[in-house]
């Protein structure tokens, strides 16, 4: 339904079914195989175990798309509940955060969008903004409450004439990071292009010039230092998603 890449995998091949059966029937065998997997690297991509896991990833993406309710809001918190010393997190250390200059910054637009003119930071700041105090939940398990303010992505998508019937919105970042989300989440009222953190201009470590704050998704689905937005029907993947993190990763 949501995922193109899943279609192929979700047709349960005869081989897959027989593998599952073997796994379920030979419990001693499965447990033995499990013991062999422990502590080792993830099994190679072409192993029968990995094929089952891939099929379940696609299934989980569909299930989450189905569970996701477009208007259910993430819990909001009071100023007093904000986490002091909000943690920095990225695939690199804090000192390696990209330095994006305000001058010359242009947000590039691509794909199924009517008005593809790029946007300066000044133009983005002129759009109506909203703020939220929500819980950021990391895929690792920890969470922290912070305050973000910015332009609701759905308003921006409407302004630029994006095809909101498309499947994906993809983000490319200044740190060579990328991620992509489903359109339903992109249109969620709490999905914002965050220009501020704690009522201050978004600092470099938290993604200057803007990050997409999505309280209905895990932290790694909230891209920082966004340089380009693309609306597309072709599954775009992402930095972590391509390495095996679940694509939908909704909260």
């Amino acid at each position, binding site marked *: 339904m949501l995922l193109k890449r899943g279609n192929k995998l979700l047709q349960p091949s005869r081989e897959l079914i027989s593998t599952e059966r073997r*796994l*379920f029937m030979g*419990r001693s065998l*499965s*447990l033995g195989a*499990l013991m062999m*997997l*422990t*502590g*080792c*690297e*993830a099994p190679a991509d072409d192993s029968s175990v990995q094929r*089952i*896991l891939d099929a*379940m*990833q696609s*299934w*989980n993406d569909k299930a*989450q798309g189905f*569970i*996701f*309710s477009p208007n*259910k*809001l*993430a*819990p909001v918190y009071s100023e007093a509940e904000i986490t002091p010393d909000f943690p920095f997190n990225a695939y690199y250390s804090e000192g390696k955060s990209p330095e994006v200059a305000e001058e010359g910054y242009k947000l590039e637009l691509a794909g199924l969008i009517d008005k593809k003119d790029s946007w300066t930071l000044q133009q983005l700041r002129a759009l109506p903004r909203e703020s939220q105090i929500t*819980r950021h*939940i*990391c*895929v*690792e*398990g*920890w*969470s922290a409450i912070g305050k973000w303010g910015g332009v609701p992505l759905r308003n921006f998508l409407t302004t630029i004439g994006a095809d909101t019937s498309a499947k994906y919105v993809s983000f490319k970042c200044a740190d060579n990071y990328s991620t992509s989300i489903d359109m339903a989440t992109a249109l969620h009222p709490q999905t914002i292009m965050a220009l501020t953190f704690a009522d201050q201009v978004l600092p470099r470590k938290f993604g200057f010039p803007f990050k997409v704050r999505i*309280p*209905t998704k895990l932290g790694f689905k909230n891209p920082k230092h966004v340089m380009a937005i693309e609306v597309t029907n072709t599954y775009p993947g992402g930095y*972590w998603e391509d*390495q*095996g*993190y*679940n694509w939908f990763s*909704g*909260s």
Partner: protein
Amino acid sequence: MAWVKLHPLYVRIFHWLNAFAIVVMIMSGWQIYNASPLFEGLTFPPAFTLGGWLGGAIQFHLAAMWLFVVNLLIYLLFGFTSGRFHMRFLPLYPRDVLHDLWAAMTFRLKHDSHDYNAVQKLFYIGVIGAMLMTFLSGLVVWKPVQMQALSLVFGNYATARYVHFAGMSLICAFIVVHLALVLLVPSTLLPMITGRAKEFPKKENQHVA
């Protein structure tokens, strides 16, 4: 010697699918836990984890969870509607639990029937409760926004993680005792595969088993 039917087919299917799912859930769960430990100084040795890294572990965890949950719900449905839970697990009185626990500790517990003693009843009801608790808190950890109403039962996302951990710990405690008892009384293993067991002789002045 006569044979009695002890475990119906659905119980045996549930048991072994559940054993497989639980082992996958726990070992991958430990790998996920290691990414952001709840308790300082407590991490699980890599040899007892599954998935190789956080992303791999999540794949195992969220794949096995469907088997675990669907299997558990089918078992509960059959167990309640067939009256088997009622027959096997009830009645259960605290006095009997204390009595049987003391008897077991002093190796004087009688093994003269296939009925569960009070401690076994408590254990099986307890582990079903622990599995439900782990399932529901896990649902909140997985979907804290969509399952907001349920998350209030456990406090919030952050506290639900502790409940999930506690549920896992209870299940692990059950597994340790369960396996120890199977080792102690190995004749209980085969009936969980074949479904049948030897009938006990009629009770007449039975002494210590």
